[in-house]
Each structure stands twice: as C-alpha cells, then as structure tokens.
C-alpha cells in the first residue's frame, strides 16, 4: 500500500491518490478486499471512527488481473476532521486495506496520512 503524494500531509479538498498490490497471496484463497479511507480517534477515552470512502472488491474483480499488479484509487478529501495530535486525543487519518481469505483469516494494513496542517497540544 503506497500513497502517491510526495508528502504525508494533504489539505482538505485535495485528491488522495494511493495504490496497492498483493504479493505472495494465492488468488484461489482470496475472498474479498475492503478498501477504506477513514479517520479514527485514539487516546484515553472513548473512541470514534469515520469512514470517508469504502470499497468492497469481490474475488472475481480482484483476481481478474494478477494480484501483484498495482491498482490505483483516488478520492477527494473532506474538509474535516483535521488530523490532531493531542495528549488525550488524537485524530488520525489512514488508508486501510483488509484482505479476507477463504479460510477465515484476515490481513490488514494501514497507511497513515495527515489531513490539514497537523495540530498539536503544546
């Protein structure tokens, strides 16, 4: 999973572009893939999550081309919530891939990025 922008920070309204490929996975084992662009909170209290983009790709569509061939996705980023690195609370954006295999196993990977200028507690 690779972000195609040069910096890990993107502005609201900018286009997020990323690509992914799957290596060392046998096509016959693949059930489906979930691609999400999402934010989540992390910290000491209750957690929250928001999904900005969600795609579910079935095994037929996935295996129509070799799995190790990169696939590109773009999406327009929203105005909020902006990334935040506080002590009690952090808001983090990421692209998340969840690959579900026939045998019930699940492989997940995240690639984080910042939306807006990173705001911090001082």
């Amino acid at each position, binding site marked *: 999973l690779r972000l195609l922008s040069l910096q890990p920070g993107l502005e609201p309204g900018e286009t997020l572009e990323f690509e992914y490929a799957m290596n060392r996975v046998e096509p016959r084992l693949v059930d489906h893939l979930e691609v999400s662009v999402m934010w989540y909170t*992390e910290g000491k209290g209750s957690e929250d999550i928001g999904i900005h983009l969600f795609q579910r790709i079935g095994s037929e569509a996935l295996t129509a081309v070799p799995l190790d061939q990169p696939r590109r996705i773009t999406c327009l980023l929203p105005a909020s919530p902006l990334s935040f690195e506080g002590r009690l609370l952090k808001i983090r954006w990421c692209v998340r891939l969840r690959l579900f295999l026939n045998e019930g196993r699940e492989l997940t*990977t995240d690639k984080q990025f910042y939306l807006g*200028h990173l705001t911090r507690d001082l």
Partner: protein
Amino acid sequence: MSASGPPSNPFATRFVAPGQVDWVGPNDYFEQLVVRWNVLKGRAAIIGAHGSGKSTLLEYLVPLLGQVLLRRDAEGRSMLHNVERSGQAGLQIVWLQLRRTSPASMVIPWDELHPSRLLVLDGYEQLRLWRRAALIARTALRGVKLLVTSHRITMLPTLCELSISAATARQIVSQLTAERTDFATIGDDEIRQQLVAHDGNMREVLMDFYDQFEEKRTLPSNNGASQS
C-alpha cells in the same frame, strides 16, 4: 496488522479496553468458571473492585456460555461485539453494560428476556437498591439466567472474586509494550508502586502509564520528520 505513521500510545483505549489484552491467569481458569457457573445453575455474580478485570473477564467468559443476541450500553445504544469470539452454542445472551455515568432509568429489554436466556449485566451496582432486588426476583420468576459484575457481594452467589496482583499487572504491561523498542521498559517496582497508589485499580495504572508515554513521546511534523 501493519501500520505506518506516528507510533500509537501502547496504553491508549484501543489497546487496553476490555478484551484487547489477553487474559492473564491459569490455563484452565475459564473451564473452572464454566463448571462453577453450571453448579450455580446459571445465576451468579463476579465481584471485584474498580479496574480488577471484571469487564475483561466477561469478554472471555460470555462467549463460552453462548451466543450474544444483543449488546447495549445504558443509553440503549448497540455495542460492537467481537464476533470471532462469539459462541455459537449454549445460551442466547442479552448483554448490558452500565457505567457510573449511566442514567438511573436504564431500561432492561424484558421483551428479549425469554425463559432460559441469559442476562449479563456489567455494572450491577449502578442500579438503585430496589431495582437490583427487582431484577433478581423478576429474572428468577421468568427463568432467566443472570450473570452480573459488582464491586460488592450481591444477593446472588459469587462466581469469582477478582483482584490484580503485581505479577498480573507486570504481565499485562509486558503484553502492551512487547513490541515497543521506542519505549523504555517499565520496571517491576514502578508497576508495584502504581498498583498500590491506585488501590489495585489496573485501569488507573494503565492511564498513568499512558500519560508517561505522552510525556516522552516525540511528535511528528507534517513532512514526516520527528520533533520533541
């Protein structure tokens, strides 16, 4: 799972919430609990102080008793349940969770509580005294099984009493920091002192370690570099 970006605090809620940390205890602990649960005919209480692991125990024990039909907080909101850990056999379970901030008017979904189903009530002591008595009587009359967690002895038989030892606390902290090369090891003495300072409340101990981690953390900048 792999991830990129700034390191997460190993003591953040997502890592320390009930069910996220592996249960620390003897291998056959849950087998023994299920045996005792059956001896008590499916009506019992788990007793322990704040942060002693009652909710964590439920995360591991409840799936062994049956299948969770619904899980709600005190405001009636559905709560996520770990489907992977959800049991398929045994009882059908209604699982409610109360907290100190829960409204006293919390509604018990009696329509869902058919005979031989199990009501799991996490935070039983949050109910007013008369509601506790009414709950026990009404579930008994309906033939509903009942498992509650409480800080004090209840009118139900006690399934188990929980407390956190320094050795258990050590193992929990070790689990959370196992893969963290960016974080100095927390010593046994420090864990013991924290546990004493918080009267055995592991939740508070982990929150203190969360703060310590934040104090030492280097913050990322927008271009990916780190700065203190």
